[in-house]
């Protein structure tokens, strides 16, 4: 079995190597037959990788402990679900997942990317193959998932913190995001290499970029939810390097998704777009490197591994290679049109881009600061939460505001008087909201008031856009309000899907602000019968209840919660003591208030031998909007992604000459 896996990986490596070398030669010399076989080799490498993945999956399912990987990451008692998800529980399996996802994307992008034009596609194949060859090389020569040993009686088991339903979904989502950014990168490089610097490469990869970006966003939100309900410190994001590793490419990809619209509409920002796609892809490689090299201290301590230096070398190669290619093609990347006014849709997109990139780069600076400071002063220093929060406020709040302004500003040149009329309603709504917030005592956090006022402004301007569009469509006649509304979205999926995503980001901002700027934290040592209050709720400790489970002892504090005279229920924050792992885990108890969207978050911080409890309680207003934002985000992304026959016809007519089959 292991031999089959190894053979499949070697086959994938050789096919990718051929696609790289043969494909480059074919594209360079313009040999069509060779280009075809390079493309077929790329497709074949997907099949070989699927075989390798199937072998590993089968070994996991059969508890074949002659596979080192299976023995290291699973055990006989481990439930089947977690046994299978151990596929990406370790480094070698994660790399195999990388290759699987990459070759899957490659096949899909090459098969659907004909619109980019034959010359471009001929170069896309070797670019995708270059990345694939690198990962396959690691899998074959450095970190093989198919290393064997004398079969053990039982395996080492999976770390308890990974035995969680989120383990099944969070890492694959992130991989679909990280790896998916290879597609726009490969098409950008293909376009540069083929000297076809029009917007075709963007149009033909738009959906893949959007999909990768949506996966990356959802993956991060799932991780945040995992941290919130399971890790139990009451937060959902800690600016840890590994979390930042996923946030940075997402920010760069967000900037890219916006700026490509300017190139499509106005033929501007060509250099900026290729630089952004290099940045996004480079950051996604850097993210993988961070999580795999152990170079930076993180609470997600991944062991230092042999693949770190390889990744660093590859990042340097990709960055240097793509930047010199951009430099060589600069004359071709000149814009056809110029920015006409500082008050225009293009300009607001540009501001949004600069803010997103600035945010991504300041986070990058914070992440690598320990290495840089050690290199310069000989003494490592770290930046912490205040650093990141400062820049989140400085760059994030204007970004929030721009989300409300951008969609209402006209292309090319907007007159200030027209702007005044357009913004009358949103500005009025924001003003009323600001005054109401101050009157309600929200002034305790200045940042909070600003964030909420901006949020209302953005929501109002989005609502206005939908209302205007619907009214205009209804005026065309023949449909009612509902019909006009749905046909409005159906006819402009990208635009209105985008607005829905904007609304989800506002919900996210509201949730984050509520949970951070307006949270109340109380800690108290309570004996049975004693109580504490936190932001209007009274918590009475009634004593402990201990139960024995198969692999752990479950200690639960019994906490009755009252609001005024109303009894809200019994909650049971506690701890589990795992025998085999000799490990304790916090089991938090959360009371969701569906009406207000807030949470009462209870942590049994310390279980004392004298029967008392150190109870930590957090009131987190509006925090559930964060998870609602995730659902809205998925909805908006799907609207924007949905195949659009009308758009296809329009594009087909526009690029009729490029639709030649290879």
């Amino acid at each position: 079995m292991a031999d089959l896996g190894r053979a499949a990986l070697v086959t994938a490596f050789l096919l990718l190597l051929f696609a790289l070398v043969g494909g480059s030669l074919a594209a360079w010399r313009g040999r069509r037959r060779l280009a075809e076989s390079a493309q077929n080799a790329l497709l074949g490498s997907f099949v070989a990788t699927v075989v390798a993945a199937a072998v590993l999956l089968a070994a996991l399912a059969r508890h074949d402990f002659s596979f080192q990987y299976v023995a290291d990451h699973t055990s006989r008692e481990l439930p089947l679900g977690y046994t299978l998800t151990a596929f990406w529980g370790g480094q070698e399996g994660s790399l195999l997942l990388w290759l699987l996802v990459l070759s899957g994307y490659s096949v899909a992008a090459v098969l659907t990317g004909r619109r980019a034009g034959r010359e471009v596609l001929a170069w896309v194949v070797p670019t995708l193959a270059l990345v694939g060859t690198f990962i396959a090389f690691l899998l074959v020569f450095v970190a093989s998932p198919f290393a064997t040993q004398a079969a053990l009686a039982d395996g080492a088991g999976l770390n308890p913190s990974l035995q969680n339903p989120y383990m099944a979904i969070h890492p694959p989502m992130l991989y679909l995001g990280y790896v998916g950014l290879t597609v726009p990168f490969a098409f950008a490089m293909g376009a540069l290499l083929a000297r076809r610097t029009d917007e075709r490469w963007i149009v033909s990869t738009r959906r893949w970029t959007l999909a990768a970006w949506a996966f990356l966003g959802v993956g991060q939100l799932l991780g945040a939810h995992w941290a919130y309900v399971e890790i139990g410190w009451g937060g959902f994001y800690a600016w840890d390097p590994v979390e930042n590793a996923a946030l940075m490419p997402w920010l760069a990809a967000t900037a890219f998704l916006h700026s490509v619209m300017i190139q499509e509409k106005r033929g501007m920002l060509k250099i900026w777009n290729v630089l952004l796609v290099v940045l996004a892809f480079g950051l996604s490689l850097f993210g993988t490197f961070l999580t795999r090299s152990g170079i930076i201290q993180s609470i997600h301590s991944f062991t230092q591994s042999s693949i770190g230096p390889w990744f660093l070398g590859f990042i340097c190669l990709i960055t240097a290679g793509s930047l010199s290619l951009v430099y060589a093609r600069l004359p071709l990347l000149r814009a056809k049109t110029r920015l006409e006014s500082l008050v225009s849709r293009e300009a607001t997109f540009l501001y949004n881009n600069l803010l997103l990139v600035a945010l991504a780069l300041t986070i990058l600076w914070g992440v690598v600061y320990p290495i840089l400071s050690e290199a310069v002063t000989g003494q490592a220093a770290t930046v912490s939460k205040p650093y990141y929060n400062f820049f989140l406020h400085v760059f994030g709040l204007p970004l929030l505001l721009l989300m409300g302004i951008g969609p209402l500003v006209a292309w090319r040149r907007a007159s200030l008087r027209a702007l005044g009329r357009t913004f009358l309603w949103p500005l009025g709504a924001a003003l009323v909201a600001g005054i109401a917030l101050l009157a309600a005592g929200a002034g305790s956090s200045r940042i909070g008031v600003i964030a909420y006022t901006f949020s209302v402004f953005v929501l109002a301007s989005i609502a206005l856009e939908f209302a205007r569009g619907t009214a205009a469509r209804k005026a065309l006649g023949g449909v009612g309000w509902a019909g006009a509304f749905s046909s409005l979205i159906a006819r402009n999926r990208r635009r209105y899907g985008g607005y829905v995503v904007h609304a989800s980001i506002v919900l996210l901002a509201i949730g984050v602000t509520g949970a951070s700027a307006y949270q109340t934290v109380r800690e108290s040592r309570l004996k049975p019968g004693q109580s504490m209050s936190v932001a209007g709720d009274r918590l009475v400790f009634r004593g402990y209840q201990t139960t024995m489970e198969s692999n752990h002892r479950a200690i639960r504090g019994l906490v009755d919660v009252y609001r005024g005279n109303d009894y809200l229920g019994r909650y049971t924050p506690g701890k589990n003591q795992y025998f085999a792992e000799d490990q304790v885990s916090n089991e938090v108890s959360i009371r969701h208030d569906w009406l207000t969207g807030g949470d009462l978050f209870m942590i049994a911080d310390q279980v004392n031998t004298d029967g008392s409890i150190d109870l930590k309680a957090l009131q987190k207003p509006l925090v559930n909007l964060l998870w609602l934002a995730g659902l809205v985000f998925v909805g908006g992304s799907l609207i924007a992604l949905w195949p659009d026959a009308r758009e296809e016809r329009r594009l087909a007519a526009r690029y009729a000459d490029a639709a030649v089959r290879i």
Partner: protein
Amino acid sequence: MPGTRSPVRLIVALSVAAVLAVFLLYTSIAGGGTPSLRPSQLHGHQGRVSLMGQVIGAPAGDAHAAGLRFQLRDVKGTTTVPVVYKGSVPDLFKTGRDVVVDGRLHNGVFVAVPDTLVTKCPSKYSPKR
């Protein structure tokens, strides 16, 4: 804008300048980062530092009263320093674990800032080979 070749360049240049200004403002207010030290490097540091080491011996005391007391040793060394800590103790904290905690050295004892104790997960992904 007559006279200028392209406002894009102006915007980009001004933004870069603005970002640099914001950055300088931040670093001048908040200073650089927190130095990250091992117990053997602690001597002579007055201000707040981030200390990383391995927990040695049995931790004693009450983290929610007078404070939890334990010794931290260089992960690859012999120098140890006594630490007193108050606040939440992470699940994974125990003898032999690598931890990071912020605080100041005060009369030979490292007095930790409350709620800054962080444990490093033991080999979350794979055993060291």
